[in-house]
């Protein structure tokens, strides 16, 4: 009998490597310490424990859900997991996959595009320029070399295409 391979299953196997993927399937005891420490648990329906279970089963619904974007990468679950499950890495693989399918949230897309355009993740404003001057700090400009280098590096390594399309 052959199991049907899903997108999520395939991406996780490829990105994490067989060893880590198998560990996730076999080592996660579903003890729930991750959901216990996660600050999202008491405020939302998102549960790390359930996400890991679904990831191990290759459940494609993970990349459809807006919950995928709630994690702030605080690493609290990573520190508590007794089986060493790399939760942030798993979320990263799922986010990349979801982004490839056009599901990057607008707010994240805005930050990524700004970074690619200016080298900064925050916009330079007239208000800040005035504040910097008043505080006796140097002028802040978009650094052309930084922008060019970021463009070359992200073109080579994937972020540019992922965010801006081909």
């Amino acid at each position, binding site marked *: 009998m052959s199991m049907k391979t899903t997108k999520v299953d395939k991406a996780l196997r490829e990105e994490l490597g067989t060893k880590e993927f198998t560990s996730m399937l076999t080592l996660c005891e579903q003890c729930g310490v991750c959901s216990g420490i996660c600050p999202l648990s008491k405020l939302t329906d998102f549960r790390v424990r359930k996400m890991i279970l679904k990831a191990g089963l290759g459940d494609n619904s993970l990349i459809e859900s807006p919950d995928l974007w709630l994690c702030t*990468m605080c690493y609290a679950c*990573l520190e508590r997991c007794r089986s060493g499950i790399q939760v942030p890495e798993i979320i990263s693989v799922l986010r990349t996959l979801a982004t490839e399918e056009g599901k990057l949230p607008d707010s994240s897309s805005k*930050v990524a595009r700004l*970074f690619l355009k200016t080298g900064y993740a*925050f916009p330079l404003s007239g208000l800040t320029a005035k504040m910097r001057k008043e505080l*006796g700090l*140097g002028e802040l400009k978009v*650094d052309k070399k930084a922008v060019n*280098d970021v463009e070359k590096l*992200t073109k080579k390594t994937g972020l540019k295409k992922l965010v801006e399309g081909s």
Partner: protein
Amino acid sequence: MTYYAFYPGCLISARLPFLEKSSRLVLGELDVDLENLDSYSCCADPIILKPLSFDSWLAVAARNIAIAEDAEMDLLTLCNGCFCSLNEANHILKNDGKKKEDVNEVLKEVDMEFKGSIEVLHVVQLMQEMGQERILEKVEKRPNGLRVGAHHGCHLIRPRDVAQIDDKRRPTVLDELVSWVGAEPVSYAEDLLCCGGGLMGVDEKTGASMLSSILDKMRSAGATHIVTPCPYCFVQFDYRQEEDPFPVLYLMELYGLSMGFSPDEMGLKHHRTKTEDWGF
């Protein structure tokens, strides 16, 4: 004189330059010389950009580190996010020969090379290294009844085997740094949880709930002020408190006030949460 390649980070540079100002004043007082190097980019940020493309994140971080390597100086940052990205990238590339080789292949595109020759430091670590005695030599004022809700921020302390700032399961480094200058840290639940700042773009309601939950705990513990070494937490606490807000200080602002710098010269008027009482 101790020299560092100064990496203020884009949130501080572009939005919170008064945090750069107080840091420069305090570090100058402590005989730390900050070298401004050209052509840094965003670290790249660990919350939004890193989970999209690990390879791009690693290459961009390696490039930033390589700029400081070329200047032969350790890199000093004021930001938890920058520390998390640059320190972790440095850690990965120093310990994984294959990844270092791969990243250097990518860095050829921009004629740079990651060597693995420097350390990445958060300003908190620099204070730890200097020690209380050296800081107290410069302290001129004791705070008056300043009870602090000290919020480390996730990316200063986790993952702890990479951050290597405080290896306790429940880190207390910020409480110690706050108490060195005579402020009293209060003990509150949720002191190590995310402030919700990283959620504000994606789900503002949940981010705001995370914040208010932490504020409630600080209030029950009797805090009068908040101190954080993280500019992301600073924005969350300073911009987004609603009723009866706590005044918020970045760690270097607390040290600056202790050293006798005035709120005016540190630009504290640019804080959104207004107060006449900085606790001194």
